[in-house]
Every structure is written in C-alpha cells, then in structure tokens.
C-alpha cells in the first residue's frame, strides 16, 4: 500500500544542537532518520511510532522511522523531517535555472516497510 504525500524538509533545535557535536555522531544520524507523519495517516497505513517507512521520489528513496504528530500540528498528507543525508536521497538536482533545488514540499510515495514479526 503506497500513498503520495508532501515532504517538508526543515530545521529543528535538536538537530541544531546535535550538529555542533558532529554530523557523524549517532544522535545526529538518528535525528535525520526520522520522518514526522500525521497520526491518522499512520493509522491508515498500519504504522505506529518507530515503524519503518520507505519514501520514494523519481530520483531515489530512503527508509526512515515514523514519528506521529497530531492533526492540529501536522495536517494529513504532510510529512516533516530535518535536513540530512536521508533528505538528499530524495531531492532532484534540477533547480529550474535558479540555483535552488526543491527542498520543501516534495511529492513522495510513502510505503510501509514490513519488519520481521510485526506483520506490517
């Protein structure tokens, strides 16, 4: 089961403090490997907190861990994750002659990743 959603890349204060310690440190890698998703969308896709999910664009894909957000904070159909090595996998190189690749509001296919023993 896959759905198309809109991915927003951005910053967070935790990411900001973690990058000072080093982008190769476990905390930074962990923070940049999580995607925030509307809890109703997660329920519909059979996902729970920390479930694995695959995001795919025409240029690449990334497997991430889910984190639920209430509808009042993150509307249905919108995903948020902090910039990092995983978001680079999903970004296209074309800048439409602007120099700026599209880094926010990227259409992504969302697909739950079955994990051994979970049945999802």
């Amino acid at each position, binding site marked *: 089961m896959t759905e198309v959603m*809109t991915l*927003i*890349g*951005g*910053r*967070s*204060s935790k990411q*900001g*403090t*973690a990058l*000072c*310690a*080093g*982008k*190769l440190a476990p905390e930074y890698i962990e923070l940049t490997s999580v995607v925030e998703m509307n809890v109703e969308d997660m329920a519909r896709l059979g996902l729970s907190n920390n479930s694995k999910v695959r995001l795919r664009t025409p*240029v*690449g894909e990334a497997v991430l861990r889910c984190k639920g957000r209430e509808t*009042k*904070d*993150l*509307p249905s159909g*919108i995903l*948020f994750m902090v*910039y*990092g*090595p995983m*978001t*680079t*996998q*999903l*970004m*296209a*190189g*074309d*800048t*439409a*002659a*602007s*120099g*700026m*690749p*599209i*880094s*926010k*509001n990227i259409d992504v296919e969302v697909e739950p990743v079955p994990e051994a023993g979970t049945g999802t």
Partner: protein
Amino acid sequence: MSENLKFVPHATCTFCGCVCDDMDLTVDMDEKRITKAENACVLGKAWFREHGIEQRPYALIGGREATTAEGVEEAAQILARARFPLIYGLSDTTCEAQRVAVAIADMIGGTVDTTTSVCHGPSGIAFETVGESTASLGEIKNRADMVVFWGGNPAEAHPRLFSRYAVTPKGMYIPNGRKDRTVVLVDVRRTMSTPVADIFLRVKPRSDFEVLWALRALVKGRRVDPSIERRTGVSLAVLEDLVARMKSCRYGAFLFGMGLTMTRGRHFNSGALLALTTDLNEFTHWVAKPVRGHGNVTGADNVVSWQTGFPFGVNFSRGYPRFNPGEFTTVDLLARGETDAILILASDPAANFPKAAIEHLKRIPVISLDPKTTLTSQLARVAFTTATYGINVGGTVYRMDDVAITLRPAFESPYPSDEEILSAIRDRVRALLGGNRVPAVAPAVAAAS
C-alpha cells in the same frame, strides 16, 4: 574543570545569522573549552560547548595524515590543474577568509558560489528584480508594532530573534514590548514558533505565492474571489482582516524564511513578498528582511558582492565576473557534472545537496576546510582541520541585517584559520600559474584593439 579560567565578555556567537554579540563566556584555559555561555540560546550553548580542541590531523591527503603545508601544496596543484574549478561554501567563516576565497576564484578563472544559492539565493534574485525595503534589526526592535514571520520557524532556528529583536523586547517606540506588537506567523504546519503569534495562517503547501498575490490585490483595493480559500487554505475574511491590520499599523516588518525560497515559486515567492512590502508603503512603513541561517552567510553575500558586483554564483572564466544562477550555482554545476575540482570552505554539501550533486563530488578532487569531520571532509582528497571562527579566530562577520560585527575569540587553537590556509593556497597557486589564469583582456578583444 581547572582553576585557570578566563572570562570573555561581549563575545559573539556565530551559530546562526542573529550573530548575538552579548555572550559572556567562561573559558577553561587548561582544557581549552568554554564551560559557560551566558545569554546564549540553546543553539548557542551547544555551539560554544562543542567547539573545544579536537585531536585531529592538521590535514589529510587521500586519507593519509599530512602537514598543513603538504595540504596546501596538494590543494594548489589541484586548483592550478583544474579547467573548471569551483570555490563553494564561505558562510561559516570570517569576511577576511571569504575575501581570499574570492581572490582565488578570480585568479584561477573559476567560479565562486556560497551557501546562499541553496538558502536565500532566490531572495537575492528577487532583490535584483523587485528591490528591497530594508531595515536593521535594531530598527525593527525599536519601531515595529506589527511583525509577520513567513515561512520560518525562528523558535527552533533563530531563538533569540523573538526575544532580542522582533517579538518581546521593549523599544524606543514600543514601550510595552510584546503588548505593543501584533505578531503574525504564516506556515504550512504548526511549529514551536506558532504559539508566539497572535494570528497564525496555515497555508496549503505550494500556495504562498497565491496568498501573497491575493494580499497585494486587497492592499490595492481589488476584488479577490472567495475561492482563494479552496486554493490556499486561507479564507478571504482572514486575508481582508490581515490587510486591514497591515495598512493601519505604524511600522510593519516581514521576516521571511526558506519556506518561501525552497519551494515551488522560489524567487517569485520572495519577489511577491517584496512587492507586497512596496505596496504597503503607500499606506504606512513596511520593511522586509530574509532570516539567515549560517553565522556569516550575510557576510558572504556582502564580500562576494563588493568584490564582484554579484552576491553568489559568480564565474570568472572570461576574466571578468558573470552572474547566472542555474549556470554558475553549485548544485547545477555538480549535478550536471561540469566542475572538475572544488574547494569547499566551511560547508558540508555532501550532507545536504541533492543526490546527483553528491555523486559528482565523489568523482572529482575535493578540498575541504572545516573544524569538524563531516561527510564532505570524508570524501575530500585534501581535508584541512581549521580553527573555529568566533571561538578561536577573530575577524568580521555580518549579522542577517547587514550589520558588521567584530569577533572576540575566546582561546587559541593549534590549527590555522581559514584565512591562513587560503592565503597560502592563493600564494602557491599564483606561483604555479605565474599570475591570473585568465588574461585581463580576452585574446579576441586584444587582437581587435
């Protein structure tokens, strides 16, 4: 902690574009680390805490430990041999180092581009197209009774923007601070910044331009169809109320983030906001400032502009500066596979560029200068360890409102500064090339004269 402590008053934090210059630092001089950073936000505290002296090689050449001088020789050879070299980054170092970086690009007939091209580069394009009604943050603090944050999350990315300049502080004409201001926040989702706002506009993704254009129409007294709500998620009544407030305030300020520049519309979004600002000045005073991320990205814009006439994406291959986003900007040069060598100054594109651009970084010789090990330094042919600007290195940086601020370093580093390494590379490249690679006058022009 040792007893050999040093107090550094009024130091400057260079983590983000706020460049807060009221840091009171306590430094353990034996351990070479900052133990306390008074007045710093959560990001600033981490910045000061985590930038002690790490035991790293002065340089790595192909993964082998080397001296700085050996690294300089290898880097100079790479740049002198390259046919389409690129100097990139610049936003987390001093203006003094940025100046040398531009000089190297000029000498080798290469391209110089900064992280602005993947930050507020589209706003830079919009400034050239639409113009900018600008102000210092001090002016906003002292005068603005209405502040609109558009496409940004300062609570997490620039925490003291609220408390030091734009929301809570009392100012000359804002005697009651927060009570005297109307604060509006526009975003596609609720963030930690949202509770600060009196009015929150949640716009649908990819509809900022439409909302801004509708506001322009309403400011000019034109009719806007109620179907705007279906397209943007914001009702006509909300937009009309906002316009009434904007036209009747004494001094309004837009502070806009990459929610405008990194999405569909890019420079058209920034341009629409700047045009709205101009429209509003028919009725009252409004200004607009981009909120900047890296500590001296504004300095990079200034240095590259005053040396070349353009803010980023500048190419010297014809012997004079040419500016063309999309042609001479780093993501494009890398994704198209055009650049054959790159010097990356205080930046980590391997951690945030599109996949195609990173793949090309892996194919060409990379020279990196960074205080930390990064994904970029790991794939570099030559990786220099540098001292940290603002903590170990003095110099000049620019706050996001183009105000120049002098750094007060806390303690010395055993590692050289960016400026020292770049100056050595510049001198060695000059010796290898025998001067500028590109003649001052192109051959065809010389033959015709």
